């Protein structure tokens, strides 16, 4: 089972970039835009995490005989 370490860096990168965009938009005076950007970035990362969580649960179900 190889782990995709790159995904962790991806998540961290998305977080930092979203923080930058948030700051820039706030400086431009578009507070609501900044919040939407944060929410969208969060949802994107959440999808990655949830997909991996689904893999984990399927694996557990098959190994520990939950049928």
């Amino acid at each position, binding site marked *: *089972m190889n*782990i*995709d*370490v790159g*995904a*962790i*860096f991806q*998540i*961290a990168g*998305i*977080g*930092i970039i*979203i*923080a930058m965009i*948030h700051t820039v938009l706030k400086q431009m005076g578009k507070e609501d835009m900044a919040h939407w950007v*944060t929410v969208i*970035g*969060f949802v994107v*990362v*959440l999808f*990655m*995490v949830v997909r*991996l*969580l689904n*893999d*984990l*649960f399927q*694996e*557990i179900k098959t*190994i*520990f*005989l*939950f049928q």
Partner: protein
Amino acid sequence: MEMIQMVGLGLIATVLVLIVREQKPMFAFLITTFTGIAIFLFLIGKIEAVIQVLEDLALRSGIQLVYLKTILKIIGIAYIAEFGAQIVKDAGQESIASKIELAGKVLIMVLAIPIISIIIETVIQLLPA
């Protein structure tokens, strides 16, 4: 060396979490969760081998398969409950974490009840009437 890989993964994830937490705490939480899931996914491949050995032993020694299935389910519930509770505890929700642990305990007890009743019946049969 897989152990070194695990430690390196943990250290890198910790540094990333520390960096990101300054800006966005939500992303730090997601990194933590992702790392936990990744390590668990790695470990579950190893656990699978151990469990196959256990199944083999149980088949050879002629133990009823129901017992083995129950034990495996209990182990699975324990792992999942521990995992979920730790993640929720990391996010700062102690009370929800303790509820998850409570749910794990209750579900394990429900699974164990058939075995307990079989034990009690056996003991009652052993007793002189």
